[in-house]
């Protein structure tokens, strides 16, 4: 079997997923032998920008029109396109204030009268192209990435948990930060895979992995309101990592 041709690409983000890949210390040498990496700008200077790819891993969100063009090109040349990390899957932190005009943000950051340059509200990859598989997380968990690579090189689509962080947290027998400590915890509506990393350290889930399928956002908001949180604080937290997610947008539109 010939080695699968791989590309690792970044839209706008912190390069955190690429770092997680490099942090697979026990496996990286094997991965390098197993895959034919054709494009990985952060780690290689000779990149093939044209060849067809078996798998494209793409991290980061779309915040610039040029990125839309390059993502479409990546899609065209790739058999499978995998969204890596919360920015790619849900829009990530850059999308937390998508309702604020870009000009206003430019004025705050670059000073009045403001710079003129192109910028679009941050969007996840699937808003523009077909995404074959998503691995969320801010950052992704390296085990999920490795599992996914193992499945993909064998021609299978990986299987990731479909339940919420809340379930992992209960299995770990943590004190419930939401119900017992009245903290702003998004564990019940956030997709599992981190083994409740934050709650294990006594930190409420900030929703960095994005919403679980069929997340009951209304019920989560109601529980938080009962505990004295303002809608402003709740919505801010909901939108911190996955603002553009349909479940969140639908809920916000109703209120």
């Amino acid at each position: 079997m010939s080695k699968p041709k791989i590309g690792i690409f970044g839209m706008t983000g912190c390069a955190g997923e690429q770092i997680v890949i490099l942090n697979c210390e026990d496996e990286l040498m094997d991965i390098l032998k197993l895959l034919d990496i054709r494009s990985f700008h952060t780690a290689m200077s000779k990149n093939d920008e044209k060849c067809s790819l078996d798998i494209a891993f793409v991290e980061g969100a779309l915040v610039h029109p040029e990125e839309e063009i390059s993502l479409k090109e990546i899609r065209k040349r790739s058999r499978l396109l995998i969204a890596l990390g919360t920015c790619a899957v849900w829009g990530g932190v850059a999308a937390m204030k998508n309702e604020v005009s870009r000009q206003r943000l430019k004025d705050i950051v670059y000073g009045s009268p403001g710079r003129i340059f192109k910028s679009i509200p941050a969007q996840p990859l699937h808003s523009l192209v077909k995404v074959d598989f998503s691995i969320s997380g801010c950052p992704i968990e390296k085990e999920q990435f490795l599992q996914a690579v193992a499945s993909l090189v064998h021609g299978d689509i990986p299987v990731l948990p479909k339940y919420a962080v809340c379930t992992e947290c209960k299995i770990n027998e943590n004190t419930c930060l939401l119900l017992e400590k009245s903290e702003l915890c998004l564990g019940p509506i956030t997709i599992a895979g981190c083994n409740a990393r934050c709650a294990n350290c006594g930190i409420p889930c900030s929703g960095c992995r994005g919403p679980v399928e069929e997340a009951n956002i209304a019920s989560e908001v109601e529980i938080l309101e009962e505990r004295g949180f303002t809608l402003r604080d709740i919505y801010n937290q909901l939108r911190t990592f996955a603002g553009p997610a349909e479940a969140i947008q639908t809920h916000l539109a109703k209120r």
Partner: protein
Amino acid sequence: MSEKDIFIDYLARVEGETAIKINIKGNKPQELKLNIFEPPRFFEGFLVGRKYYEVPDIVSRICGICPVSHMTTALRAIEKAMGINPSQQTRILRRLMALSQMVSSHLIHLYMLAMPDYHGYSGAQEMLPEFAEELSRLMRMKKVMNDLTAAIGGRASHPVSAVVNGFTDLPSSQELERRQRDLEKIETDAVKTVRMVSEFSIPDFCRKTEYVALKAANRYAMIEGNIVSSAGLEIPEQDYDKYFEEQEVSYSMAKRARVKDRNSLMVGALARLNLKFDQLPPSVKKLAKEVGFKLPDYNPFHNNLAQSLEIFYGIQECRQILENLKLSLENNNYRVRAGEGAAFSEAPRGLLYHRYTINARGVIEKANIVTPTVHNFANIEEDLHHLVIQNSDLPTAKIALLCEMLVRAYDPCFSCSVH
């Protein structure tokens, strides 16, 4: 007059997106631009209106390589704004995290981003199998350092347990012992790393500049200290805005920072070593001498060697801290107050600055972040200018490669620089 054009449309083996554009007429660059085109995410914009305790978690997402630095610097700025003095234990744990992250970051840069240039390779995958031993060493060392960051922060990148005035969770003493034993195992690897980097054929280039770093009286400062420079600046961190300024650059998404009315400056490993060499332990000084590191060193390519020496130092320092560390649960309570706070840290790439204005309800009213690459921006362009003049006789491709290597030697982070 002969004319040469250098255009690198997307510089590889650095973090983030930048282009280099140089037009040379005769032996002089007529136009020289480091065009940092990484688009902004507007962190300073969307932090406004958020609660102070959300800030560290959010700003750690500025960078996947130095999240500890952004998180810790934000925590300290918020604490200063509210008049909170964190415990000795909290300060030590933050120092450990900063050191372990610095070593990991330097390792990735030296082995994966810088080293291929010195052996004529495109990247790590091409370097296998010839450099399998070196790459295995990299993996071994990086794992130990990432495990240490994760033991304290709950996760190596974007840590979770560091909060205002302390940590929500502490590693067990057994865990700390394991981390200490692991550190012992990689000390020889660190020495090999320094020797390996010292054998790179570093371009002969020298340009005097102003080095700036954080300095404290009794230790090699990573988090707390005064801002000092090789041109005699010495100011407390809250006075930064009085002495420094940020300027917009028409062709770049990142700004440039400099000391008001002065030329460009350099921050990072080489600046730290130049300014704080006397505070390093004898073993590091001895190794530095053995590999020919001499003060003052004005060759920016030697930032690589300085990073390798900091790897050796960082591992030793972490081990020493762990040897005497006894942790106990502390009361992290504090009162929310309005205020303005500024803080610095030495991120792996150099001085990082966060400043926040917080109102009485704990809501952020203003945020400002100045990153190491913003501090280095003007200096990189100055160095490129002189490097081009010095090498203008060479073929265009060779000059271009030298320019790429110079920018990489700074280990820039363009995502950070734009944020």
